[in-house]
């Protein structure tokens, strides 16, 4: 999925880097220093419905054209994450223990139309 240009109207991934220093949390989150808080937004017109974003193939392009020519769009389609990865965190818990854990599905890597 392309990451969004400021005025991109279509479904894309909006990237935001969050530095834990900015949250005032560097005293208890030891590593990493920040993470990508990405989210999906943008419109999903009917001919994009079901298109998996960057994984679009020739077949899905043709399929999209067929859909676009179909005067009865099949309901609404939403811009949703289609690929996410875990975030490995090293932090201090309330007892002062050092905890290393992988938080699943924390970073959105790709968006697509449902």
């Amino acid at each position: 999925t392309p990451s969004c240009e400021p005025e991109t109207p279509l479904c894309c991934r909006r990237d935001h880097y969050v530095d834990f220093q900015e949250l005032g949390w560097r005293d208890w989150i030891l590593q990493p220093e920040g993470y990508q808080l990405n989210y999906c937004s943008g419109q999903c017109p009917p001919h994009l419905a079901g298109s998996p974003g960057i994984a679009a193939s020739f077949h899905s392009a043709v399929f999209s054209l067929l859909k676009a020519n179909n005067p009865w769009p099949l309901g609404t389609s939403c811009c949703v994450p289609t690929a996410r990865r875990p975030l490995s965190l090293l932090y201090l818990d309330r007892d002062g223990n050092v905890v290393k854990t992988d938080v699943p599905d924390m970073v959105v890597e790709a968006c697509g139309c449902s």
Partner: protein
Amino acid sequence: QRAGSVCPSCGGPTLAPQAERALVLELAKQQILKGLHLTGRPIITHPLPQAALTRALRRLQRGSVVPANGEQVISFAAITDFSASTCSSTLTFYLSTPRSHHLYHARLWLHVLPTLPGTLSLRIFRWGPRRRRRGSHVLLAEHQLTAPGWHALTLPSSGLRHEESGVLRLQLDCRPLEGNSTAAPQTQQLLDTAGEQRPFLELKTRPKEPGAGRARRR
């Protein structure tokens, strides 16, 4: 609201950059706390010495993979009482392993001072819960220490259930091996039990399989 521009998703007015940034930071806090199953950020009352922290992290197996939703924990010992003898002391650990997790790997890291006189037999006991007789403690492991420096002593994870209160007390009891002519005088300290080289526990947990307790009972 940013004049003129329209949200590409909902068509509503878009946020001014500062307001959008503040919203993103708030979302990040919620996402992190939810991912760590915390209701609020921990308040660090006594920060760890940086050197102890750095050393402990270096000791963790490099690239050790934490199982999905599992955790690797380093817990530094708070020394409760330390007898003047060579290396017998009680180490107290405060652990808040979530109920939904199962401990499957435990090692106690000890730093033995250069005053080590030959081979020492070290026995590690776990104190019973407070409410029972003070003397109830269970032998967890016995190791022989032959050289100064760091030692990673494996403990049976089954024996490390910590009390409802989240406190685990280990009693170290050591004695020179018989016939050890260079035994240290009883007052010489052999273990580093405070400061940057204090003992710590290295634990690994993973989520319990659903229904695990039932399967075991069956």
